[in-house]
Every structure is written in C-alpha cells, then in structure tokens.
C-alpha cells in the first residue's frame, strides 16, 4: 500500500447552507500515518468538512475524494474504509454488543478483540443497552467501536466533548496507540487542550477558509512560544502569566520551543492574513 499518496483530497471545495457560505474555495490533502487536528471557532465549518469527507454532505462545486473515490457518491468501497464519529448522536435502543455485532459486519478490518480491550480501557460495559448509557459512556463506546473498525480514514467530531478528565487522558492514549502508518485520523475540536501532544498536523479554519495547515515541526520553525518579563511589541499574541508574558513571536533565530495549541490558535485568529502568508 502506498502510504505517501493523500488518502483524502479536497479540491476547490465550495459549500453553503442556503445563503450561508461555509467554504468558498477550500483545498487540502490528508496523508496516511497522521492525526490531523481541525481547529476553529464555532460555526466555521469543522463538522461540515468532516461530514463532506465521509459523504454525508455534498459540495456545491469542487471535489472531495477519499482513496480516489468521490465521497458524495457514497461508494461502498469507500464507505467500508471510512468511519465518522459524530459529536451528537442518538444511540439505538439495543445493547452495545448487538450494535457492534451488526454494524461491524460490513467492515473488513474489524477487530472484536480490540474493541473489548478498548471497552475495558474506557471502563464501558458492552452488555448494557446503548441508549441507557450516559452520554459520556455512549461516546466512549462509539469511539472504541470506531477505533476497532480499523478503517483507513477515521473522522471524529469533538470526541472529547462530554468525557470526564480521566477519560480525556485515556482518549489521547488510545488514539495515539491506534494511529498506524496507513491510517488517517482527523479530529475536530475547539477544546485544543484536550488534544495537546496528539494532533499533528494542525488545520485552522475560519469563515474565509483555511488559515493554517502545517505540522508541529513547521510551526515551531516559524513561531516561538516563549515567556518574557516584558511584552514584545512584535508578538502575534501575548497573555499575562505568573512568570511574566506568555507570547507567540516570530522565530527569527530558529530557536526550539514547545508548541502551545491554545496560544497558536489565539495567535492565528488575531493574525489571519499574516499567518496565511507565513504558512503558505
């Protein structure tokens, strides 16, 4: 299997809900072996993008292909290698066990043992009725199912929403364990701290389209995340902290620093045009 070719390819995508334009001209590619983080404010189109990729929405113009197949045509050959975990869903009135038995039938790489192991990790009992579980438990069961399907493309919309703090830590761990060389995982979130140290590359969307699409290495090459006693007038973003000012500044000297996703997100939103040019 060629792991260098993009699995997901979006080409000049235009999408709108009646008069509300979501994407005017969006182009991006997703390569296997990576966990893409889709960041953006509410309503910029993160969910719309994920739903378009898995064929739940059809673009006005432009094209979205998954493994070379148009996603909107919902080809079964494409669908068997893609799974979408929605932010909100209605669990069916059957047991989790029954749900996974019936829904896994059409996925060739389904691994039941892996699912039960993930359920143990997440502390979910699959013999319970799906709709009777709490929202957090339902979400964990669905994430465990989605990961155990081993599809080449896994899309997760706000997976950490509704999870307690220990579950968020477990979520980060299991996702990183399940990320393989031939798999693309795309996670949308507006709670960037929940997915810190997990997502790479980062895609930041806004109402004008995509502002940034870069991996952590590229970001740390161009930006310096630092604390200084005085504010830097050239900083893209700064915030007072106990030790002085936490800032995002241009990395002219190529100094190493640890990328802080929340600071990056805020800096990007304040300097949209600059960042577009910086990461072009």
């Amino acid at each position, binding site marked *: 299997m060629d792991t260098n070719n993009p699995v997901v390819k979006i080409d000049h995508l235009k999408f709108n809900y009646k008069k509300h334009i979501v994407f005017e001209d969006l182009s991006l590619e997703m390569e296997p072996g990576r966990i893409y983080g889709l960041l953006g404010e509410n309503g910029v189109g993160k969910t719309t993008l994920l739903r378009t990729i898995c064929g739940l929405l059809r673009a006005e113009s432009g094209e979205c292909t998954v493994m070379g197949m148009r996603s909107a045509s919902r080809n079964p050959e494409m669908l068997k290698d893609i799974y979408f975990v929605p932010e909100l*869903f209605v669990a069916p009135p059957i047991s989790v066990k029954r749900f996974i038995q019936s829904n896994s039938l059409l996925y060739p790489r389904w691994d039941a043992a892996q699912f039960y192991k993930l359920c143990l990790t997440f502390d979910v009992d699959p013999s319970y009725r799906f709709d009777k579980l709490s929202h957090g438990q339902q979400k964990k069961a669905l994430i465990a199912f989605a990961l155990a399907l081993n599809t080449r493309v896994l899309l997760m919309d706000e997976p950490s929403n509704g999870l307690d703090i220990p579950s968020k830590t477990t979520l980060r761990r299991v996702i990183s364990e399940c990320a393989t060389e031939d798999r693309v995982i795309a996670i949308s979130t507006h709670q960037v701290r929940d997915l810190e140290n997990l997502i790479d590359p980062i895609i930041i969307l806004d109402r004008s389209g995509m502002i940034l699409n870069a991996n952590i290495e590229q970001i740390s090459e161009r930006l310096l995340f630092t604390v200084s006693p005085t504010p830097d007038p050239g900083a893209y973003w700064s915030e007072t902290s106990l030790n002085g000012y936490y800032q995002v500044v241009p990395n002219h000297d190529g100094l190493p620093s640890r990328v802080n996703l929340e600071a990056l997100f805020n800096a990007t939103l304040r300097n949209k045009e600059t960042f577009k040019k910086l990461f072009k």
Partner: protein
Amino acid sequence: MNATFSIHRLGLTIYKELQEKYMIILTSIGIILMIYLAFWALNLIDGEPVSTAARAASAATTLSIISCLAPFFLYKNENRRMEGVFYAVSPSSTLEKTISMLVICSVIFPLLSTVLLMSLDSLLTLMPFEASYSGSIWGSMFSSKEYLDKITNILNFNTDPMSIDMVNRMYDTINPLSIPPIVGLALSQSAFVLLNMLFRRHKIGYTLLTLLGIWVIVAVILVISAVSFFDNIQSNPDIDPELIYQWMITMYKAVTLTYYIFPIAFWVLTYFRIRRLQY
C-alpha cells in the same frame, strides 16, 4: 467488488438490519397475535360461531394494516439527520439498502406475521370450546375470488342497457386481469414506505394526511368523469352498448395497470430518497 450491487453485501446488509430490528419485528407480531386472541376471546364470550370467511377477512385486514405501518416502526430514524448518520454511512450501496428495506418490510415481516397469525388461528380451531373456531382460513385468506365476485356483482346491478351476455363477456375479460389482494397490499405498503422516508417528523400523521389528500383528489376526478360519462349516455340514448363495454374494459385495464406500476414507481422513488439521505 461492484460499487452498485453485490449479493454478498446485500446479504450482510439484510442480516445487519435484521439484527438491529428483530425485537421491533417480534414485538409488532406479538401485538398482532394479541389482538387476534382478543378477537377470539370476544367471540367466545359472544357465543356466536364465526365463519371462516369472516375470520379470514379480519386476519387479512389486521395484516394489511400492520404491514402498512411496519415501515414506521422498522425505519423510523433512517432519514433523520442525527439519528440516521449510521445508516447513511454504512458501507452498502443505495440499491442494496433499498432491496434490504423491500425484503424486510414487504417479504420477511408480512410473511412471518401471516404464517404466525394463520398458525394461531389453526391452533384456536383445535381448542375444545363450544362456539370456538372451526375450519381453516389458510385457503381463503388472500383469495381474489371474493374481490372478483364483488366486481361482477357491481356490474350486474343493471342488465339494461347491458345484456347478461355482455356481463359474462366482461367477467371473462376481467378474470385474467383481476388484481390479487396481495398486489393491493403491495401498492399501499410501497406508498407508506415512500412517505415514511419523505417525512422526518410526525410520519404517520403526515402520511395519512397526504394519502387522504390524494384520495380526495382522485375521488373528485372519478366523480367528475363518471358524471360526464353518464351525462353522455343520457344525452345520447342511442349510444352503442358495445362502446360502453369497451370504455369500461379500458378503464378497468388502466386501473389494473396502475396497481402494478405504482408499487414499482414508489420503490424507485424510495431508492432516490435513500440516495439523497442527509443531503
């Protein structure tokens, strides 16, 4: 593997849907059987013997109603935005999803209900109660003979200007064309399936209102054409009875044809509706 149709995938799709829906199917059939048992118990209390034809008619009516309502129980959420996500992204083609719906709604569910209901009736005939059921309804349940008799009775209402000979000729023409009740059921069920997939909320209410609206429109058109037809006969008393005969046969053929065409058309429309789910 073919993107449009694969028999293996279809089999898996039907199996998947049956695994998810078997409880709904069994509960619905349980309700039908309970209603039938209640009907039997009422007859016992009443003490009057019930004819085989009456039992067959009541069983057929119950089965028709439940078969029409089945899509609302079995495919309640599939066309809804939030609840229907898993259905829309499940890896089978639109054709396979449509055929699976057809097999479950129009074959498995009605067949299972019919067999179980008739078996229950047969079991009840064995009960050693006075005024209990006797005779089998298996033969008369879906017979088209009664339907045909009704038609010929209607046509017999007036032998003037049509002669007895004409009625006999008409019977001979209609006989091979007669619509089996199963086709009538297929027509109404396919309409219910389509409307179930069209409406996202208040499905049963909107479906009944829509069908009522269509029924009113069709009734108005039929009344207008019948009035103008009889006006024509009255204004032309010398009209050739052969012409009337030909007109009635043509009308009957047209109606018969729609009985066969509409279920197919409704299922094709359901296919396109499934293809556009979530869009």
